[in-house]
């Protein structure tokens, strides 16, 4: 595990760790398969509380976050992440079935990096994941582990 993290410090994005937060286990699995096929490491959570706990424990490089979640919805998760100095730098991509008209700006205001409505185009999603990891690292905001 230790060597994994060391590797992440070098700009090798393909081994980046992504936290998937969605209350639907099948969707989590599908995303996990898709991301692993693209050489990302994944961890996943099914509710808001475990999302924060896992983010603290695993220190992912990126979070994919659903908005409708049990035990603290997506906006609560975004708020908690923003309030935590150790986590606020992690790029968060919101992936939700909810309407963009009333949720996109609110998500971005709450600290999300990008917003996708389900079902999202996989190529577009992967492209934004790459871009987010790249700019997070180019900023040098990834804290030393």
């Amino acid at each position: 595990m230790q060597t994994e993290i060391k590797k992440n410090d070098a700009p090798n994005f393909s081994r980046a760790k992504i936290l998937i937060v969605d209350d639907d286990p099948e969707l989590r699995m599908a995303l996990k398969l898709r991301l692993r096929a693209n050489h990302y490491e994944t961890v996943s959570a099914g509710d808001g509380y475990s999302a924060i706990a896992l983010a603290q424990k695993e220190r992912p490089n990126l979070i994919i976050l659903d908005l409708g979640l049990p035990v603290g919805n997506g906006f609560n998760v975004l708020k908690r992440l923003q309030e935590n100095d150790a986590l606020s730098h992690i790029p968060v991509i919101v992936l939700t079935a909810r309407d963009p008209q009333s949720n996109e700006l609110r998500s971005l205001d709450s600290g999300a990096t990008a917003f996708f409505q389900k079902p999202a185009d996989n190529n577009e999603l992967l492209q934004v994941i790459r871009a987010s990891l790249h700019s997070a690292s180019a900023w040098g905001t990834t804290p030393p582990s």
Partner: protein
Amino acid sequence: MPDFRKQVLLIEDNPGDADLIRLRLIESRTQLDVSCVNRLSEGLASIESTPPSVVLLDLNLPDSQGSETFRKVLEKAPGVPVVILSGKEDEALAMKAIHQGVQDYLIKADLTSRTLERSLRYAVERQAVLRSLDMSRKQQIEFKNQFLSHVSHELRTPLTCIHQYASLLFDGLSGPISPEQRDHLQTILKSVNQLHAMIRDLLEATRAESGKLRIEPRCLALVELVRQAIAMIRPMALEKRITVELEGDSHAPLVYADPDRVLEVLINLTDNAVKFTPPKGSVTIKLSQQATDPEFTYVTVTDTGRGISPEALPLIFERLYQDPDAVDGNRSGLGLGLYIARELVNLHGGRIWVASQPGESTTFTFNLPIYSLSKLLFPVIAPERRLRESMVLVRVDLKPLASPVRGNWKEVCRECLDLMRRCVYADKDLVLPAMATNGPEDTFYIVASTDMERVNIMTTRIVEQISVLTHLKATGTIRATAREIRFPAEMQDKTLEQQVEQVAERVTELILTDFRTMNDFNTKETNANAN
């Protein structure tokens, strides 16, 4: 049930008639308070300050005659019952009044205290029933819209699941697949996309019905959007060997419209045209101006399809309408596309219509307002038909700190534009609509009715307000500069319209020269970041 005293407002200019009616009402021994005015203007003022239970209205008043009188009263007080008192029988006028919402039409000569009292009482009751019916109808619509919006959301989740797993299989991520399996999966994915589009249409139509559809107009080149629409539809058209071409005017004037929404309309019309055209046919999109209508630009989409029957033509823009003959093995969708297209065009202030030669062709036409800076500027710089004495052009630049992620920077800019609009005086300053260029709009222009000395207050306010936006703080910086708009010397003998036109030209000139330097500046920044 306690009977509250009813307030009767009598609008009657003949003192004799007014006294007679008062007498009749007193005779009826009902609990009525009667107040009387003798001009329509006083009546309208009284309705506004203290809405009465019922209005008794004479039609021929010193300041208004005939149907105009009740039209104005109904407009002022849509919920208040109105009973007309007339000197003469006029069945046509009476019918017209009833159709527009008047409760009763009484002839003065026939009045007895009982008939008058009864008519007023029933008028009040009928109006109350109407009101509650109207309320429950509105509630039902609201309920239906909420239901549809909830259902659409719930449908998306399983749909996403189907999409995800089918595409995992399709991309070979769950193991190798045979060409036949690939084919089948492609069909599943295509159907998922269709279903997704239907859910989106359902939500759009629901929004249109509840008046929540919004547009964000800007200044844009329509021809670019037409090219985009054609590029998106062409692959599907090629499969049927149908040509899709743009014809004519590539120098069409800029329009004032929402690019996403107009593209939606164009795709919808072109997609329909291809769907209903037999193989080897053609679809032509044309942009044109009409001398009789200089403020609009026209778009026509013509196909060589089998046309629309004359009976179907008037229904085609209605919600859920489906052409009963459209069974070419195509799944035809929800029948919401043209309804949404019409709502979107109407929101732009344009119109959409259709003409068809059955068996030969169909042409859909819509028009959009041409962008005119002087039209936008007029109410701001020439209020009360006098040109302002000094104006300043303010340019606000947002600059990203690093190459930003898709969607995010565009949203930051859009939000800044909204915020800027709230920072200026709506009646004195104009935040110019964004110009449609590639990439996010991070340069903004404001025409401010102020002078160079006072413009600082405005720019400081804007910079302060915008710089507190949380994600601008993280992703960019802001700078505001101001330049005086100098008027040409020979303005005096021109008409006001010509003067505003000249100011608009001057503003455009300033912006264009600014744009050039701005572009250089951008290039430099990009290079610096890349290094």
